[in-house]
């Protein structure tokens, strides 16, 4: 299948490994990945901060760039949520019904990674190998805007070597919320503290999620605590193989010696 990658601005700029892993994984499964280079950002930050009129130009761009593709994937539940649920709203607000219906069409064929794998490509065992104790934070927008349900967990359970640790109060928000983390920094920090407490209680060495933004938040907190727990995007786990694991260990040995 030919799949267009919507990389998202955050993954493109700060977490390219999540996007590279998405490409690697889909190519390994025998699909063609294309990257429309005129794409930038879905405009979620603008909409959620109260700037739908500014977001309009980004919606127009997104619709123009992704209109030619049958299937679009993004390694981010919240950006897919924005495309699927906010773009048409932004267009309608501006009185552009034609743009709204085109945005709705694109929304229907834009998938978060776990949805693409399980619902469209019909695969739960992607042949991955990741020998770590992993806990999974489901992320609010994947959970409640996209209703991905247990798809990410089904994918993770099929990963060889992976030990899945259940996260207490998993469905509670980590406190990121885009500009919420800045505008209400104290409240956001209190929410993060509880999320980190729950992550640490799992004794996992990796906290995974399907959204770079939540991972940036949780990872930023864990890093400050020097908690020794890594945050890793779901795509990176699914893209890992036994060969890469061996190569990685070899490379680390060489660096040390």
């Amino acid at each position, binding site marked *: 299948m030919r799949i267009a990658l919507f*990389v998202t601005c955050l993954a493109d700029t*700060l977490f390219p490994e999540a996007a590279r892993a998405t490409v690697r994984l889909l190519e390994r499964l025998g699909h063609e990945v294309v990257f429309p280079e005129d794409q930038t950002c879905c405009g979620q930050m603008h909409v*959620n901060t*109260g700037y739908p009129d500014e977001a309009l130009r980004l919606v127009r761009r997104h619709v123009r760039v992704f209109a030619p593709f049958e299937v679009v994937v993004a390694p981010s539940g919240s950006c897919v949520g924005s495309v699927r649920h906010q773009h048409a709203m932004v267009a309608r*607000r501006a009185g552009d019904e034609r743009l709204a219906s085109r945005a709705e069409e694109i929304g229907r064929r834009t998938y978060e990674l776990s949805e693409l794998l399980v619902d469209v490509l019909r695969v739960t065992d992607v042949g991955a190998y990741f020998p770590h104790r992993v806990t999974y934070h489901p992320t*609010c927008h994947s959970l409640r805007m996209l209703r991905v349900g247990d798809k990410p967990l089904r994918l993770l359970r099929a990963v060889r070597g992976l030990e899945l640790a259940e996260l207490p109060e998993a469905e509670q928000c980590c*406190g990121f919320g885009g500009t919420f983390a800045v505008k*209400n*920094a104290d409240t956001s920090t209190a929410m993060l503290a509880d999320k980190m407490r729950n992550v640490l209680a799992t004794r996992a060495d990796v906290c995974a999620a399907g959204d770079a933004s939540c991972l940036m938040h949780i990872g930023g907190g864990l890093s400050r605590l020097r908690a020794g727990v890594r945050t890793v995007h779901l795509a990176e786990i699914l893209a890992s193989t036994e060969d890469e694991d061996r190569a990685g260990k070899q490379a680390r040995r060489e660096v040390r010696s």
Partner: protein
Amino acid sequence: MTRTFLGMPTTAPRGVGHLREGEPFPAAARRGLADPQLRRNLRHATTTIRAKSGAVIAEVPDWQQLRAAGSAVKADTMARLPELLEQLEAAVTAAGGTVHWAVDAVEANRIVTGLVRAAGADRVMKVKSMATQEIGLNEALEAVGIEPVETDLAELIVQLGRDKPSHILVPAIHRNRAEIREIFLREMPDVDPGLTDEPAVLAAAARRHLRETFLSTRVAVSGANFAVAETGTLAVVESEGNGRMCLTLPETLITVMGIEKVVPTWRDLEVFLQLLPRASTGERMNPYTSMWTGVTPGDGPQAFHLVLLDNGRSAVLADEVGRQALHCIRCSACLNVCPVYERTGGHAYGSVYPGPIGAVLSPQLTGVADNASLPYASSLCGACYDACPVMIDIPSILVHLRAEAPHPRAEAAAMAAAAYTMDHPALYAAAQRAAKLSRLAGPRGRGLPPPLSGWTASRDLPEPPPQTFRQWWAQR
């Protein structure tokens, strides 16, 4: 899109009632966040209610259909509100009651105060009522020498503690039983000095304290959970029985009701009386459901007044997106699942309506500019939408209100610049290369300037990678 309509309904007036924040949410939230006892009380209470409510909702096989039915009845009601209110007025009048229309809090307080005086009373007992809290009725009564006595246990705790309610259903949720015991010892003149902090003992003390009031007070003021347009029937649901005492013992009963509480038919109560208790207290049925229609000679109050309160509701109704907030049946399920409410407490919202529903309702009733920080008091996690028994899409209303809120000038400039940059891929790529935030700000970005310092106070920024994805793609 702000439109000004000449002659359109106005928002709730300033200087009266409890709908406006004294200070922005982030500042008010800091007090709650810094109080470990409050955090523990809230966490314990909301976790307990969440579990109870989840369990009884799981028993109902058609919960989603019930929610949809509740939502549909409310949408229909809002679509023909004027007609239904006139029908209600006619039915109440035919049953021997008197209907008063109050455009805002000032007028409602004047009407109620006048009625109490006309009845020759200097004390009223009150059933827990959000509408009278909203308009500041207690303060208005006290100003003219009338003593209001709250009879709901939690409202009494709040009143005796000279405190403010912090939850719609459990106004004293922020207090634990040790604190309540102290308040009772201090404020109840005839209390047993050996009072313990056992909930049953505390409830019994409140009951003894209130008994004399129930028997000697001639006027009561209530709110209403529902009003049935076709029959003129008012309904109050409660757990303690104090409500029923207030509704049946006095000579004069005055009900203050927001105009959105009307339902078209008696049959519609069937839906809401299933939704409300399971969503709010986690009970299958609330212990007391009191209904009354006008007056009945020789039985119950012999004078009944219904005050229909607007106080900004017509303005909410005029907003296509925001009007769903009027569907609220005050169950407080959204508060109990909200991670922001759980950590900050209700006082942070500065209004009698806290939590997610407060964050959308208060700014609409007052005009967004007067409660501009409330639409931002949410991470948009969506838990409130899932919990709402009448399916109010609170996250969408929050986003809608943010677009109407006044924006800080620097933020607006930054947002416009960001949108422009992101609409020009070459500029965007250049900005990506320049945006090595953490390098600007020292190791792990700990020295970022305000407002971004809020982030780095507790979180490290990721190290920016040497290569963006699009650079990698271009080279592969």
